């Protein structure tokens, strides 16, 4: 007989999503270009700046918005 304590819960089988963390210093949002730009050369950068990973250059689904 399995006791309640031995049963699995949604939290028990949850796992950490894949994550990308990009150094906050590398990028900045430009209101003029209306995009994130690199601080070094003012070109477009696709950093997520400690964001929650889904919204990088490739729109990859891997976090709480994993759709």
């Amino acid at each position, binding site marked *: 007989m399995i006791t309640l304590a031995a049963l699995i819960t949604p939290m028990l089988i949850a796992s950490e999503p894949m994550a990308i963390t990009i150094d906050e210093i590398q990028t900045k949002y430009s209101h003029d270009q*209306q995009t994130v730009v690199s601080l070094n050369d003012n070109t477009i950068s696709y950093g997520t700046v400690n964001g929650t990973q889904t919204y990088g250059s490739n729109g990859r689904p891997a976090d709480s918005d994993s759709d």
Partner: protein
Amino acid sequence: MLLLFTGSLDGTSDRLIQELGHRAFRFNYNLCKEYHLEFTPDYWEITNPAGHSINSNTVTRAFWWKAFNFYLVDEEPFIVEEAKYIFRELYHWCRIRGLVKGNPPDFHNHMGKMNILNLAANYFQIPQTLISFQLAGVDKLAGKEVVAKSLTSGLTTTNKALFTTEVKIETLHPNYPWFLQEKINSDADITVFLCGDKQFAFSRSRANLKGLDWRKEQDFEMTSQEWFTFDLTLEQTLSIANFAKNLNVDWGRLDFMIHQDNFVFLEFNANGQWVFLDYTNEIGLVKTVADYLLPKP
């Protein structure tokens, strides 16, 4: 002009803005206090710090893309709620006037997974699926391989997510809500991106997956192509078009698996990500979406 409700860190929005230029105005929720906003019952105007502006006379389209997936940092909760209210009200100002493209951010609050599966069953095979409290109804899944999934993709307090995981129903704790589905054994994941009257189908092999959920095993370094486009049959195209018409959508992603050469419908993502399907822009998805959002005059 397109009003794009989003966040400043969103790479998808970056790509759309690159395509649309200043035919679009980007309104970033997480930077909302940097904008000048005037909103009255009969007029509104938003101006960003660089001087770009949009108003109730110049807006012709509106699109919501992940705006509230970003955060107002170190902000009083009351202010957060006030700011969200403003964003919602502006979005619905546009919706009331028929300017909105895509799907509203709360689409699935109104049309959840079971309602959509019920509708999808008219056009596709669907897996046996159960939402259960106290394990009611799990006997109907007896003898089948079963996976547990998340309804919301929400995170636990330890920032973990419930990816599709194979479970044995006799080991499930009864004191939790469960979203269970018959496991479909398939050689490939299929996703179809719906954009206006266009359908883009992609396949991803499951041959090298260690687990069940491809989202856990993505190549973020883009060292190899994972998703490959393919042509739908006329029957599949018509089924998807009729499903979308019945659901009253022209935007989103449909996820399938293949079982004995038939599409098995898994779910519809009203606001699913799509850039990763064409990150090298070979198919031109960004331009297709830009044209959908704001056709060139």
